[in-house]
């Protein structure tokens, strides 16, 4: 080979165009923001029909998850996500998509070894480290409380 691996890596880097941030970031911001607006709309709606804020928030999450799961099932979510990037990944809709898409995809291997076993293949790490982070947070809070925090 007429090139060292280090030099090749630099060359590869030069020819590998990065994502166009000036397009992707504003799109993610706009679509992510739109999802938040829809969420706010549902919260206001649930408050208006007489729920308290905690119940209205829970209903909003459930509604967004439902919409996301349906869009995933109809094959539309990834079409939006292709443009939205983190805009659809970060809100709770992204989490729903991460659970529903493997659940559907691996249905062909059966409900136990397919859907059941593979459902959390993408979302699993989020749950694991989410719980771990909550645990650490709890310990820190406990220690602070010992010193009269």
């Amino acid at each position: 080979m007429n090139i060292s691996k280090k030099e090749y890596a630099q060359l590869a880097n030069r020819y590998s165009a990065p994502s166009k941030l000036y397009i992707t970031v504003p799109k993610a911001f706009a679509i992510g923001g739109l999802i938040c607006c829809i969420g706010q709309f549902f919260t206001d709606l649930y408050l208006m029909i007489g729920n308290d804020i905690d119940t209205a928030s829970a209903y909003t999450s459930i509604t967004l998850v439902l919409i996301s799961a349906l869009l995933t099932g109809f094959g539309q979510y990834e079409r939006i996500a292709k443009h939205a990037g983190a805009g659809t990944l970060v809100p709770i809709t992204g989490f729903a998509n991460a659970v529903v898409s493997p659940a559907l995809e691996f249905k062909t291997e059966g409900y136990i070894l397919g859907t059941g076993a593979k459902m959390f293949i993408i979302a699993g790490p989020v749950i694991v480290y989410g719980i771990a982070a909550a645990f650490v947070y709890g310990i820190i809070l406990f220690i602070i409380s010992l010193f009269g925090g």
Partner: protein
Amino acid sequence: MAKLISEGTIELDRGVSVYSCAAAVGKMESDGPLGNCFDYAAEGAELGLTTWEKAESTFQQYAFDIALRKGKLIKEDISFIFAGDLLNQCTGSAYGLRDTDISFIGLYGACSTMAESLAMASLFADMRLGEYFAAVTSSHFCSAERQFRFPINYGGVRPPTAQWTATGAGCCITSVAEKPPYVKRVTIGKITDMGIKDANNMGAAMAGAAYDTIKRHLLATKTTPDDYDVIYTGDLGQVGTDLMCELFRRDGIEIEPKHKDCGLMLYDREKQDVHAGGSGCGCSASVLCGHILPQIAEGKLHKVLFAATGALMSTTIVQQGESIPGISHLVEISDTL
């Protein structure tokens, strides 16, 4: 009989024809710039079947059946089948061809399998180990996606360097020299690791292998890119193409005017969302069987090199932080014996 003319380069001096060939592709491939040249174009990716794996096997079966039909052959005429694909344990081939009742040699060369299987089928033909030999390969976007990346409906974003696994299959049937196209020489690739670790940049991982194999073939045959009508690579995509041309440029060889990449030919990158281009065994297979070989048969092309490229990786090894070795096998095809 086949003789070694240089390290890895074999000359087939008794004469071998690609007697018949066929390509079966999916919807997106038939919507691309080469759309009209395929023998079978599916309406959808699943072919009305229950799993993607079944669909992939069926594409392979279609390509084989159509190649037989075009050559007015029956499956009993075939002495050996060489086949491979991207699925674990090459099940796309094993299940697609399980009802053929023909001696089967399974191959794995990742996306280079079309050149690898055609090279083997041509060598067997040159050694006269039978009358007809089949080389078959396939890939399917959905079965590859679920094995190597994410579920189809997952809203992940692909970086610009990522490539699109083609849905399709190709089959070549070789025989003793009867009519063009003729397989003249083959160069078997070496495993070439350029140190690339990004599974979303296969083109960069494979460009070194393509460079190495083509360079060795040119040296062994004492030829230059100008001696060929076209030098095809399998699925380097835009990134790999740029890198391979740059590697040749460092040797003072200008390959760019003669070079075409099947991954860049199969799709319209402006209109179809394939990022750096097509990939997968089915990419180079369908372009070879649907476009390149018919062009040679019609006399529109006279002498070409077909160097399919493969990334010899698995998701497990990539997750363990290893770099991705590439390979490229080359077949020289001509319209004169």
